């Protein structure tokens, strides 16, 4: 019998990528919540000694870390209900955009992670990146995956379900519907997909969490500047 475990954190969009993929494929798994801020479990530290972070998938005891790597693994292990196109060129394009999302994450999330001048710079650049994503990544498609959702949609799921909560927590708007109409249309469509609708963290809980985290970050920022 197959044993699949997912080590996660309730608010993490990276963990949700994996949850969505597992659920899309009807893979039964046991979810284990990690107390990331206080004490990471021995299982997590053993399973991901390099990065010590979630998500980690354990399949029959064998650990896989890094959400994008886990997504590819899930796609290969459970090929039904595919989340990647068959055509090699289209697969390459999907991987390209997932990598784009990973590489640009520090800038895209800079509005939340950073302060002052650096934050301003990040916000400006992030807006440009979202335009690029909309124009070249999404194009005229309903989803990044085409007519149906795929791994790339999961990878950018944070833009659909997390971004506006974080924007509210920080008091900065990154993504305006007027300047990114196609992306906002995608956000609406993505959120309507039953799999997604039924599997996102509670908004109120997220808002208070991100507000709290933002304040903690601000305190660190101020004290690091003072020293």
């Amino acid at each position, binding site marked *: 019998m197959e044993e699949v475990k997912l080590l996660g954190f309730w608010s993490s969009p990276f963990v949700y990528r994996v949850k969505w993929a597992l659920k899309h494929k009807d893979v039964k798994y046991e979810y284990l919540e990690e107390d990331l801020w206080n004490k990471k479990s021995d299982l997590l530290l053993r399973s991901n000694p*390099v990065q010590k972070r979630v998500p980690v998938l354990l399949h029959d005891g064998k650990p*896989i870390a890094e959400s994008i790597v886990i997504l590819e*693994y899930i796609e290969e292990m459970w090929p039904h209900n595919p989340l990647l196109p068959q055509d*090699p*060129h289209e*697969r*390459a394009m999907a991987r390209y955009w997932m990598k*784009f999302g990973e590489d640009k994450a520090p800038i895209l999330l800079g509005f939340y992670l950073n302060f002052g001048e650096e934050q301003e710079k990040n916000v400006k650049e992030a807006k440009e990146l979202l335009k690029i994503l909309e124009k070249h990544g999404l194009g005229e498609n309903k989803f990044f995956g085409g007519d149906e959702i795929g791994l790339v949609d999961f990878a950018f799921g944070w833009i659909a379900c997390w971004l506006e909560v974080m924007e509210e927590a920080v008091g900065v708007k990154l993504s305006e519907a007027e300047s990114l109409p196609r992306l906002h249309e995608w956000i609406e469509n993505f959120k309507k997909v039953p799999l997604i609708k039924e599997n996102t963290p509670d908004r109120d809980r997220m808002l208070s969490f991100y507000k709290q985290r933002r304040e903690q970050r601000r305190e660190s920022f101020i004290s690091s500047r003072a020293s």
Partner: protein
Amino acid sequence: MAEEVKLFGLWGSPFSRRVEIALKIKGVKYEYIEDDLQNKSALLLKYNPVHKKVPVLLHNGKPIAESLVLLEYIDETWEGNPNLPPDPYERAQARFWAKFIDEKCLPALWKALFGEESEQEKAMEEALQNLKMLEKELKDKRLFGGGGGGGGGGGEESIGLVDIAANFIAYWVGIIQEAVGAEILNRERFPVLYKWIDELLSCSVIRENLPPRDKMLAYFISRVQAAKASK
């Protein structure tokens, strides 16, 4: 059916060389076009409007960018001598380490070698830590391996995705160290990693697809001098 494969690359770029190595291991015929970074060629801008940089592969007119994405594409498109193993779990491990190299090792190494002085010490520590973890992953293997026939007799001893992804560490770091007068990677600190470097560079397909050492060294020396001059 005649196939058209073109690679836009840069002689000194490790990312560009990764793709060339993968194509050579597979025996894929391709046309190489050196990109003049100073005046970005119109063709490059057309095919990689997002990142505007090499390497870009053009296969039957369709462009693909990003070296690690290309390594997977090459595996999926052409038969024989794969750079990824068949087992999904092992593939996941290879992808993990290739990602680790690109997202953690390379930026830390680059900052440690070229970063602002205030950042260098921290970057050096991080680079050393990352390299230690990479070295640990090698264990007692000659290569990171997982490939299917590019560098040896097959099985785990053949050049794989991680070996190719780590080309910067195997070749460029040593040259850049000499140019900047730093020492991060040395045989004493990383005996296992150095054995891997020796093994990798002994593979003809790797050796024959690296930029000439003296030319690369001269390039980095002039970069260092230019940086000093602008201060």
